[in-house]
């Protein structure tokens, strides 16, 4: 690993606390975040399955990682950059080719309201 070992920083994963057991998370909330519509039977079975996955992952808790730096990468690489140079873009027609709907060069989407 790169650099010196440090204390882990605060965990940015807000979805599920690592200590969560089977039932302690809200399947419908997670489904909403992923914009999934679940029937109640699906929510029940997926909730059970997710609970099993989390319980399995909870085994990692047994490891003492206090001295291990959190990392998202297995390779010790840093500072991967490219020079600031313009490269050709797609044509507008190519850019829109996969769009379900387009008009006047724009991607057309359902009306956005925030």
């Amino acid at each position, binding site marked *: 690993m*790169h*650099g010196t070992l440090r204390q882990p*920083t*605060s965990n*940015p*994963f*807000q*979805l599920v606390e690592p200590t969560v057991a089977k039932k302690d998370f809200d399947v419908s909330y997670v489904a909403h*975040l992923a*914009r999934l519509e679940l029937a109640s039977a699906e929510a029940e079975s997926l909730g059970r399955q997710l609970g099993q996955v989390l319980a399995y992952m909870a085994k990692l808790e047994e490891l003492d990682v206090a001295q291990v730096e959190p990392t*998202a*990468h297995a390779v010790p*690489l*840093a*500072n*991967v*950059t*490219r*020079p*600031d*140079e*313009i*490269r*050709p*873009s*797609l*044509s*507008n027609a190519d*850019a*829109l080719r996969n769009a379900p*709907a387009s*008009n*006047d*060069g*724009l*991607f*057309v*989407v*359902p*009306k*956005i309201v*925030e």
Partner: protein
Amino acid sequence: MDYEPVIGLETHVQLRTQSKMWCGCANAFGAPPNTHVCPVCLGLPGVLPVANDAALRLTVLTGLLLRCEIPPRAKFDRKNYFYPDMPKNYQLTQYDQPSAMGGYVEFEFQGRIERVRLTRIHLEEDVGKSFHFDRHSGVDFNRAGVPLLEIVSEPDLTSAEMAYAYLNALKDILIYGGVSDCDMEKGMVRCDVNVSVRPAGSRGLGAKIELKNLNSFSGVRQALEHEISRQIKVLNRGGALVQSTRRWDEVLGVTEEMRTKEDAHDYRYFPDPDLMPLEPTEAWLAEVREGVVELPLARKQRFMHDYQLPAADAQSFVDDPTLGDYFERIARGAANAKAVANWVINDLRARLADSGWGLHDLKFEPRGILELVGLVERGQLSHKLAQEVFAQMFRTGRSPAAIVKERRLAQVSDTAALEAFCDQALAAHPGPVNDYRSGKTAALNFLKGQVMKLSQGKANPALVGEILERKLREPTPSSS
């Protein structure tokens, strides 16, 4: 009860790069929609974003300019949300390990130097632009992936006016550093505002209200003025404020609620697995440090101190840095820098504006202004004629000395010659002479004017005044 506002700003600034943050599409405003797009910034499957070196440098340069700490390591995270302005359904940003921490912005405000602390500066990508039609919306991704800084201030601002001054100071610094063009018309700077009010003098913080959709500094000021008085009214009526996000409606001049804390976004940040961390090396930092420039406020203070200029003159040279640089080249060797500043700010700037020229078009040597100042200072040229000489210098590029010699404009300080002009003027205008002698001393100015006319403007006005006064006090009238 008296309330005081507590304000913090999140300022988004587009960086001045050629290409976007993760791909080679042009970072340019105003192109036809979806023509600066590619598989990377359209978020097509299987693409690999690679960080733009120039954007990373400009980010750290901003941190250095604003006296931030540059952490040894920064990384990029995914901020997940569903909104069609980002085709990937996440925005790349620096969540818990940004490129710059702390720092501050110093600026003049109401006669004092204020310091607003910064929390952090992080680098992220701009999102696409949406257009709203009756039944659907359209999205242009030309802007998606443009490198965008977010500069987060501490809640150190205490009024709408102060927020406005802070933003202008920040903008000037970023322009000075070449970090961003900060063109408001092109949406290069946008703000989110956090504002709460608390009983005056207390330490706690009230419910934080976030204002969105602010794309001009005057909009920020107006929205804050409105929102502060709205919050105070609610509290004075015995109401309660809850943490929420409100949208500023520029047309109606009001803020309206968008969402409260209960439905705040859950962005589920996590480190981007495609992007490697940034670990600035000493050599790289040294290169970036070369881009650190003198900040506008420091420049103003230096001009006031080194050249003894009044604040307004120094500000002119801050607002127009190339004019200021030009002034400095001349003023370094000047005995009277203030006089040089007057020529540069008044006469030169006016002629440049009239002619449409830039400083690089100037035909005369910079030291020409120094010579001109010298001629006036030594009493060899009246200020009025010096302006004519300057006009000719500007047109032809010839030196002031050459112009003065050729046109015989040199000021007449030869007493005998001036005495003759004075006698002539006194003889020709007995009325004013009598006026002066009967106590109307203002008549002296008229007589002085006549002498200047006779000398075709070349007489030394101070000497003329002395001679006239002496002659008018003589017991025997020289006019008969």
